[in-house]
């Protein structure tokens, strides 16, 4: 009995770790999508900001704050690019996002090779100090991500500014008629969302894994996207969703450690993806997409 509870707690705390990227990324993307822009390039942002924060961490010998800052900044810059393309340049948001992802994959390996001369993993770097909870440890970023989610929820659904943002995603024409500068709001929302994704990437590299590898993201950006839709664009629900999806992730890791057949590890790895797909297929119909999502707003 004890062993079962122990395993369960193990899993839960493991899930706390793995849910952070899914929560931060989702919260950021919720803000972006509520304003009407879809940014599927957050996977690429994860990768690139993980990269940059690892670099800073390595070369400064452990300056955590600087590393995180650079990671966030990476997200901000990419968000600026994607935002400009999606708003003032009236470009295709999905294609731009795909481009970012492809570029990021390429950059990741280039960096690995040129900086550390390897194709696999970077050397390990100092991690963020953890908070102790009994026998287990919890990352401060975990707490931060919950706070951000609550803050985002409050901002979007309880403030006037959030209302104006949401109007851009529902009916940009009406919003513009009521004086909201839709393009500007969308750009800012994209930058904000991407910055959170940047924080996320930093977390992945210097908090969770402790090194940079080109597989550090492994589709988590897309699971975060699924979480966005699953949560019906609500950061609070997204926290729950992140836990569920993170749990799948944790389960996969746990099972591959615990099980007797190492080869089954690969099969366990599909759990997060299949789980996400199943959950999304069942719940998607009940959700309400921001009406103007993904369509460039063209002022007549």
């Amino acid at each position, binding site marked *: 009995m004890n062993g079962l509870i122990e395993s369960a707690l193990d899993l839960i705390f493991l899930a706390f770790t793995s849910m952070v990227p899914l929560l931060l990324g989702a919260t950021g993307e919720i803000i972006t999508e509520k304003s009407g822009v879809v940014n599927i390039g957050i996977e690429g942002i994860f990768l690139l900001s993980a990269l940059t924060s690892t670099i800073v961490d390595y070369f400064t010998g452990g300056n955590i704050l600087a590393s995180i800052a650079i990671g966030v900044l990476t997200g901000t810059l990419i968000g600026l690019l994607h935002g400009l393309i999606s708003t003032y340049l009236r470009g295709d948001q999905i294609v731009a996002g795909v481009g970012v992802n492809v570029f990021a994959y390429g950059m990741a390996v280039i960096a690995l090779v040129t900086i550390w001369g390897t194709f696999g993993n970077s050397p390990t770097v100092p991690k963020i100090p953890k908070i102790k909870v009994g026998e287990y440890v919890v990352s401060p970023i975990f707490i931060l991500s919950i706070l951000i989610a609550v803050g985002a929820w409050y901002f979007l659904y309880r403030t006037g500014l959030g209302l104006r943002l949401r109007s851009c995603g529902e009916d940009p024409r009406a*919003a513009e008629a009521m004086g909201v500068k839709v393009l500007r709001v969308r750009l800012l929302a994209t930058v904000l969302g991407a910055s959170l994704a940047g924080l996320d990437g930093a977390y992945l590299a210097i908090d969770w894994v402790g090194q940079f590898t080109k597989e550090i993201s492994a589709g988590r950006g897309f699971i975060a996207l699924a979480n966005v839709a699953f949560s019906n664009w609500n950061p609070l629900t997204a926290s729950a969703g992140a836990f569920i999806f993170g749990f799948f992730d944790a389960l996969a890791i746990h099972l591959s450690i615990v099980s007797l057949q190492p080869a089954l590890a690969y099969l366990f790895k599909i759990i997060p993806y299949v789980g996400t797909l199943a959950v999304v297929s069942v719940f998607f119909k009940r959700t309400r997409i921001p009406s103007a999502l993904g369509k460039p707003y063209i002022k007549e």
Partner: protein
Amino acid sequence: MSELAIEMKGIWKVYPDGTVALRGVDFTVRKGEIHGLLGENGAGKTTLMRILYGEIKPSKGTIRVFGKKVSFRGPWDAIREGIGMVYQHFSLVPSFTVLENLFLSLSTLEKVTMSEVRRRAEKIIETVGLKVPLDAKVEDLAVGVQQRVEILKTLMRNAKILILDEPTSVLTPVEVEELFKTLRKLKDLGITVVFISHKLKEIKRITDRVTVLRKGKVVGVAETKDVTEVDLARMMVGREVVFELKKREAKPGEVVLLVKDLWVKDDRGLDAVKGISFELRRGEILGIAGVQGNGQRELAEALAGLRPVVKGRVILEGEDITNLPPYLIYRKGLSYIPDSRSVGLILELNVISNSILTRLKSFLGRSGRILWGKAREFTSSVIKKFNVITESLTTPMKYLSGGNQQKVMVGREVIVRPKVIIASEPTHGLDVSATEYIRRLLINLRDEGVAILLISTDLDEILQLSDRIAVIYEGKIMAVGKPEEFTLEKLGLLMGGVKVD
């Protein structure tokens, strides 16, 4: 003179492509009155008001609001001067509540809190007697209530002048009464109202004075109590209608299309066609006259199989074609020419593809192969017969002029000699020669025995082409008869909803 709320003098509006929308219009509204702006589609009413609201700039002319000369760069300048506009299409975010929408519009002008917005809204609701549920979602509200939200919105921005563009076109009779009550209350509070409409009865009921526009010019200004509906109709519609097209006396044959008690809903789920019945004979043109938005489009789409028929029957040559799929209806000989080229054509595709768009099945070989050779031949004959000017058959449709696009859209239906043609606004947006061409074409078709249902908001067209006229108003046929049976005033009255015998 601060007695005048609005004084527009010598307003001209000429568009870059040469269209003249307004010719030297003078428009004055006294403070605190309800002033009606009357005219047909295209008379210039909306253009004039959009200029007043700052959305468009006049090509010439001056505007004074409460005595002050103004030059608006955009709606926000107009709002600051106290002008509020309520359009037919509302600027409300459907998924937000009323309160949220009000907050949204106010928050641009000043810093407010939600509770402040609520307080102000409730005050106005009380003073004016507007019944508006602040916490309901806009999309859940009836259209009449949504309109009240729009009015509330403008009042909260301290509007002293309220412009309503065809406000009753989206309302039920009961909602119309409510609106009028509200307007009278606003008048008591000293607010000036401009009421744009084509509905004579309502102009008569609610306005103090009325200005009539026709083809961009003011044809009359009067105290409402001094004019009758007949006078208004004559002003609105009367002109020398020259029957330029000589046509033979029609020799209608047997009934080819029978429509019985048809009921059709519009996109909002409201009844658009309310029990229409008529018959159409071979070799005649039946013109459906009416102002846009009275159910014509829904009627046409229902007959063509593009919109579900809720109740009633459509019978083509004795066969019941109600609710059959469009391609079957085409095959049975009923062609529909829609009023909009964005529905009837795919501009990115080339001329050949568009020519065969509606009867693709007849250009298919075995296993679904498209017989482009046959299609090409068909397109050539359409091009030749209807004098369509295009660089080549494979030119994308978007490069053809509007007139030529229309010719293809009309030509491809007509060339296969259908039994019935439903032509909706066939000359809309065309220049004089293209218009002439298509009208002559319709008459020739009629002479060859085709039955034509002509739907048009252009009275000239209806009068020139129709062998019989039916006037449609709010989904019902007001009257049917030969063109000679209708005087122009009578037509105007019927189109404005006044029943005459």
